[in-house]
């Protein structure tokens, strides 16, 4: 069998068989699934107890104005004072007593809610909300603006974005979906580079400190060992991602059918979508519940407008390109040091472009056409992260091609460089290495 294949296989199997890999693979989907299921579960856990609330309106402004809901029943009491109820509150059967004082029109704190328990937030915000609305309406009326005018003033704008393709055909699109897709793609690449790049580095250090490396390089070429390790670890990463996705989907469908048989698919999607937007803080969260189902489905339909062929293709390309570029650098660092604590000084030049990429990515998600987004999506050290958020918004093919070509060239360059450092470094022990030393190594002939 080919030596590089053997090396890849060993790197892959030893990692996949590790306990930590198995634990991570199982824990990951449970966490992801929890992230998606818990909000849905909480939503379904709404308080369904009927609560009676006595309203003692001393101002007379709110009589019958606070409407009862399915679970909150308001009872307007005129023949009792707060003190009358206070002493036999338990027997009265009320959940709470709402006292509105006459000064309410000019003093916001003139409302008291008495209860034997701490009233829930939902109760409190419902009461405050309706009272605020009522007060505002009354004040507007006092200014001579009637309710119909008020209604006609209330406006709502919702922009439907339509992309024109090259032939001028309409294509439904959604900025939000584009943002979400790009953001997730870019972040996954960032995460993958860091997590598995560090694994490559640790693997190299392990071989060096255990002194097996000299035996291996007397059988296989150092470059074969380097590439075998990088590719093997990449396959571990891909396996892990694949398992995560499959297991997460399995858990979600499983839990959904067992626990919420009546929870429609759309509902779950809504919750997920809502979750996503809330986290991004892109769309004000309160807009979402107001959105009706049609609008939501139109968003989901718009998801189809993203060119998934290009998107998935570029994702795989940048995912692997970025990882290979940084993976070889991580390996070079591992070869240059004797133990993990010495890696700090060399980690900085690798970490900085990645973090830059991350910062620019967050910016590019809002303004994908800005010069800074453009340049950082061309420069190979940040392009895998930044380009990913630009692609869903549509990127000219020449830019994509340029970025990819540069990435490949740089990858070849860094791998060549890393290979040289690696070759010298793996057989060098007990030497404090600095950048000057690394420069020397680059000029060694083999």
């Amino acid at each position, binding site marked *: *069998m080919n030596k590089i294949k053997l090396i890849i296989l060993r790197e892959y199997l030893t990692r996949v068989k590790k306990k930590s890999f198995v634990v991570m693979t199982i824990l990951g989907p449970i966490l992801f699934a929890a992230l998606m299921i818990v909000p849905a579960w909480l939503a379904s856990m709404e308080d369904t107890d009927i609560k009676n609330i006595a309203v003692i309106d001393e101002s007379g402004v709110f009589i019958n104005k606070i409407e009862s809901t399915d679970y909150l029943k308001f009872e307007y009491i005129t023949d009792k004072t707060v003190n009358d109820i206070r002493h036999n509150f338990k027997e009265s059967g009320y959940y709470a007593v709402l006292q509105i004082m006459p000064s309410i029109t000019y003093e916001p704190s003139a409302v008291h809610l008495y209860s034997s328990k701490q009233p829930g937030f939902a109760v409190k915000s419902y009461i405050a909300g309706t009272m605020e609305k009522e007060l505002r309406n009354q004040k507007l009326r006092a200014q001579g603006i009637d309710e119909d005018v008020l209604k006609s003033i209330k406006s709502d704008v919702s922009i439907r974005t339509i992309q024109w393709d090259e032939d001028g055909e309409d294509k439904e699109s959604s900025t939000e979906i584009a943002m979400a897709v790009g953001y997730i793609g870019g972040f996954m690449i960032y995460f993958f580079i860091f997590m598995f790049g560090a694994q490559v580095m640790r693997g190299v250090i392990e071989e060096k400190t255990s002194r*097996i490396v*000299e*035996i*291996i390089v*007397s*059988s296989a070429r*150092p470059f074969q060992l380097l590439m075998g390790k990088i590719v093997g670890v990449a396959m571990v990463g891909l396996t892990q991602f694949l398992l995560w996705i499959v297991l997460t989907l399995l858990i979600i469908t499983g839990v959904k059918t067992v626990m919420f048989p009546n929870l429609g698919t759309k509902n779950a999607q809504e919750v997920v979508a809502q979750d996503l937007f809330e986290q991004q803080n892109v769309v004000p969260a309160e807009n979402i519940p107001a959105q009706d189902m049609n609008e939501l489905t139109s968003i989901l339909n718009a998801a189809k407008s993203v060119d998934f062929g290009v998107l998935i293709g570029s994702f795989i390309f940048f995912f692997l390109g970025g990882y290979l570029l940084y993976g070889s650098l991580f390996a070079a660092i591992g070869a240059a040091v004797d133990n993990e604590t010495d890696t700090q000084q060399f980690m900085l030049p690798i970490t900085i472009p990645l973090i830059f990429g991350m910062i620019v990515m967050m910016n590019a998600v809002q303004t994908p056409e800005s010069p800074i987004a453009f340049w950082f999506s061309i420069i190979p050290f940040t392009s895998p992260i930044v380009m990913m958020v630009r692609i869903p918004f549509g990127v000219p093919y020449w830019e994509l091609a340029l970025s990819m070509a540069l990435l490949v060239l740089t990858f070849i360059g860094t791998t060549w460089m890393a290979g040289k450092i690696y070759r010298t470094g793996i057989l060098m*022990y007990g030497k404090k290495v600095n950048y000057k030393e690394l420069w020397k190594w680059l000029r060694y*002939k083999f």
Partner: protein
Amino acid sequence: MEILKAINVEKKFVNHLALDNVSISIPENSIYGLLGPNGAGKTTLIRIINRITAPDKGEVIFNGRPMKADDVSLIGYLPEERGLYKKMKVGEQALYLAQLKGLSKRDALKKLKLWFEKFEIQAWWDKKVEELSKGMAQKVQFITTILHEPKLLIFDEPFSGFDPINANMLKQEILDQKKNGATIIFSTHNMGSVEELCDHITLINKSRNILEGQIDNIRKQYKSNTYEISFNGDPEKFASSLNNHYEIIEKTKINGHQGVKVKLLHQTNENELLSLIIPAVEVLSFNEVIPSMNDVFIKVVQEYKN
């Protein structure tokens, strides 16, 4: 015929010349000692032979033709600093290393079984390397070095870390390998084992090859006309019997008797010496002192310094 020849090999690191015009030639089916002080360039030479690094100048001839990359599968190398993957199981690891040397999985498995039986370590197959003692790991390492039946074996300080019993076993294995036709390059500081095992040696000092040849010839070449004599009688009488052609360089005890080392200075020979001392004392033994490799080593390196 030589299995390996290095011709005018030079290797330079940025501001340090590691090997300066070094040539060695290793006869087939011999045990070849590679000697030299620390930092002399032995490891660099070994790495060049293993194709871990390439020489700047000169060439390496293997089996009568310039060495190729594939030739490493005909070499077994046990480096001085050795180790195995700590988290990997012994059997798995041995199998991996054997396959890297070009054995098929089936052959490797078959051969490993034999060797594990021979060394009585079958029970270690599924143990992780980190559970083994240092000596145990060395045995595993030795097996992986010779498993693919290499034509050329390179051992760098093979006895370090072995207890005397295991060291002896290792010595036997090395001799067995030679018997089976392998050539062995043997780098060590242990001159005792050099005398015991090696046929040829080369001494590398300060990046240069300063001494090369058959070990017996070298030792004869460095003998200093010194004789060791043990006798019964009065040491004073012994001393006074000698004239100024002789010098007593050391007084010792040999098997409970008086002993001296006498150096013959010039215009004399061992017969004359005997004729002088026989009347004075009762001579029990009379031997020419052949310098040990240890003496040769120290002498040559010291001379080179001056």
